[in-house]
C-alpha cells in the first residue's frame, strides 16, 4: 500500500518534470538562438551571410572579419577607449555612491530627509529629460565634447548605486561601527577599513552592473563623442549599421567582441550579477 502510493507519487513527479523540460528546453533554444547566430555570422564570409543556404554551424572566417571591421572603422582603438572609460567610470562611481550611501545610512545630519526625498522623488524620471541640458552643458558650455571626461563624468549622477549602498550599509549591525568609534577610530577609517570590507559582495555586484552599463552605453557616447578617434566601441559599430558598403561579417565580429567578454564575466560572476540586478541597481 505504502509502496504503491509512493511510486504513484514519484511517477506523477516524473510526469511533471518531463512536461517542465519539454516546455522550457525549446524556449531556452529560442532564447539562445540570436546569440548563436551572432557567433555563426561572425565566422562567415560576407558571401556566405548573403547566400540562400541555411548555415547553423561556425565557419573559420572570424579573423578575416575582424580585419574587415578594422578596415571599416578603427574598432580596436574604440575598444581601448571603451575599456578605459568603463574601468574609470566603475571605480569612480563605486567610490562616490558608496561614500554617499554610507553617509545616508549611518549618520544623522541636517538635510538628510531632503536629500533622500530628492533622490527617491526623481529616480523614475526618464533619462531623456536631462539629455539635452547635459549635452548643451558638456558640449557648448564646458567644451568637453569628444573627450574622456565627457564620457565618464556626467553618467556618474546615477543614484541607484547610492540607494543600493545605503541599503547595504544600513543592514549591517550598527554596533560594529560604534565599537570602532569607542576605540577612537576616525570616521573615514571606519568607512575604509570596517564598512567597505564588509560590503565586498555588494561592491562587487554594484561594480559589475556599473561596468556593464558603461560598456554598453550607447546614446550618450553617440551624442557627445561622435568624432572618429573619440568613439566608444558600440558607437563605432553603430555607425556601420545601415551603411551599404560595409562588411556584415565584420559587424558581427564586432558584436561578438563586445558581447562574449561580458558573457564570460556573467558566467564567472553570475551570483554577483544576479544580486546586483535583483536589487534594482540599474534600470
Amino acid at each position, binding site marked *: 500500500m505504502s509502496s504503491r502510493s509512493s511510486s504513484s507519487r514519484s511517477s506523477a513527479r516524473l510526469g511533471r518534470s518531463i512536461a517542465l523540460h519539454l516546455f522550457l528546453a525549446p524556449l531556452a533554444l529560442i532564447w539562445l538562438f540570436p546569440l548563436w547566430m551572432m557567433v555563426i555570422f561572425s565566422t562567415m564570409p560576407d558571401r556566405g551571410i548573403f547566400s540562400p543556404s541555411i548555415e547553423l554551424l561556425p565557419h573559420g572566417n572570424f579573423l578575416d572579419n575582424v580585419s574587415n571591421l578594422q578596415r571599416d572603422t578603427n574598432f580596436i582603438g574604440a575598444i581601448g577607449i571603451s575599456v578605459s572609460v568603463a574601468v574609470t567610470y566603475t571605480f569612480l562611481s563605486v567610490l562616490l555612491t558608496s561614500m554617499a550611501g554610507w553617509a545616508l545610512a549611518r549618520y544623522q545630519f541636517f538635510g538628510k530627509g531632503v536629500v533622500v526625498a530628492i533622490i527617491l522623488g526623481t529616480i523614475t524620471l526618464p533619462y531623456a529629460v536631462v539629455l539635452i541640458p547635459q549635452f548643451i552643458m558638456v558640449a557648448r558650455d564646458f567644451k568637453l565634447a569628444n573627450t574622456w571626461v565627457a564620457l565618464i563624468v556626467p553618467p556618474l549622477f546615477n543614484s541607484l548605486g547610492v540607494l543600493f549602498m545605503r541599503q547595504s550599509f544600513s543592514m549591517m*549591525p550598527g*554596533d*560594529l561601527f*560604534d*565599537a*570602532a*568609534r*569607542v*576605540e*577612537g*577610530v*576616525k570616521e573615514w*577609517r571606519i568607512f575604509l*577599513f*570596517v564598512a567597505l*570590507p*564588509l560590503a565586498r559582495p555588494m561592491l562587487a555586484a554594484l561594480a559589475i552592473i556599473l561596468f556593464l552599463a558603461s560598456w554598453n552605453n550607447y546614446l550618450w557616447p553617440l551624442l557627445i563623442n561622435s568624432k572618429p578617434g573619440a568613439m566608444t566601441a558600440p558607437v563605432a559599430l553603430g555607425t556601420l549599421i545601415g551603411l551599404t558598403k560595409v562588411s556584415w561579417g565584420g559587424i558581427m565580429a564586432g558584436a561578438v567582441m563586445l558581447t562574449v567578454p561580458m558573457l564570460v564575466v556573467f558566467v564567472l560572476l553570475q551570483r554577483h550579477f544576479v544580486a546586483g540586478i535583483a536589487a534594482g541597481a540599474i534600470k
Partner: protein
Amino acid sequence: MAAVTLKKVVKRFGVFEIVHGANIDVNDGEFVVFVGPSGCGKSTLLRMIAGLEDISGGEIAIGGKLVNDVEPADRGIAMVFQSYALYPHMSVEQNLSFGLRMNGNPKADTERRVKRAAEILRIAELMKRRPRQLSGGQRQRVAIGRAIVREPQVFLFDEPLSNLDAELRVQMRVEISRLHKELGVTMIYVTHDQTEAMTLADRIVVLNAGNIEQIGAPLDLYDDPANRFVAGFVGSPKMNFMAAKVVGNDGAVTVELANHGGARLRKPLSGAPPAVGAEVVLGVRPEHFFEAGEGDCDIAVKADVAEHLGSVSYVYASAGPEELIIEREASRQRANGDHMAVSIKAVRSLLFDKSGARIR
C-alpha cells in the same frame, strides 16, 4: 580608574522623552548594574555615557571631568556590545589591536596589551581565528578582550550575555566578576535580567519607563524595595501581590485580604498608617509563605499546578481571581486542585498603596 556622575540627564527623541532626568553616582571601582524591562531607557543611558548618543539635557562626568561634548574615544571608556560587534573580516588578534593600530599606538605597546588581554581571558590559542570560527562564549571573551586592550577607566557592558545559552551565561557571569576583581576598575553593566543584576552588582539601578525607581545594593532592593515595581522586578519567581483593604489603624495597621474569606493581618508600621477603608496591596514573596499556624495570618488556596525543581517546589495556586506562587519544600506531591493552607508573617510581607508606593 574613575567615578561616573550623571546629573539630571535627559534624553529626547523628537518630542518623546526617553530618560527623564537621571541622577546616578557611580563610585570609583564600583560595579553598577542598570536593570529594567526592555524600553526602560537603560541602554540609551549607557550609550549616552559612552558618547554614542547625544545628551538632550543634564551633565555626565567621568573622573570628575564633564564629558558632554567629548568624543567617545576620549572619554576613557571601553564598551562591550550585546552583538559582540567583532569585525568579521579580521582575525581575533586584528580585532583586539584594531583601535590601537588605527590610532598609531606604538607597535610594541600594542603587542604587550594584546598579549595581556589574551592571558587574562585565556584566548591566546585563538588569536589567528576569524570570529565566525569561534563559539559564542569565545566571541564574548574576544569582545571583552577588545575592551581590556584599551586599558579604560570605565568598562561599559550592554547586555553582553543575552546571546549566550543558560549554562554559558552563568560561566561568563563568574568570569566577569573575576575580571572586575582583577582589574579593579569601574564597570557599568546593562541587563534586563534581574538574576544577572543581583549576582554581579555592588549596586543596582532599577529603571522603569525612563525613571530611576531605586538605587541600592542587591539585598537592600530585595529586602526593602521602594515601591511595588522594584518589589516585583527583583526576586525570582516574582513577588505575589494580594488585594487588601485597611480595616483598622490603631498604631499598627490591620488589613483584610479581598480574596481570602476575610482573613486579616495586623502589621506594625513605622510611619503614619493609611486611613480605614483605603485599598492597599500586600506583597509576599513565594519563599515567604509558612506552614499554616506558623505565621500571623492563615489563608486557604487551591493548588493548581506544582513544579518540582528538586531543591524546592513551586505551587501555582489560586484564590478567586488571584493567582499566587508559593515555594514549598521539595516533594513529589502533585497538585490536583486540592486545597492547601499557608501562613503569612507580618515581618515577611510588604504593604503598598494603590499607586504602588511603599507603606512603611
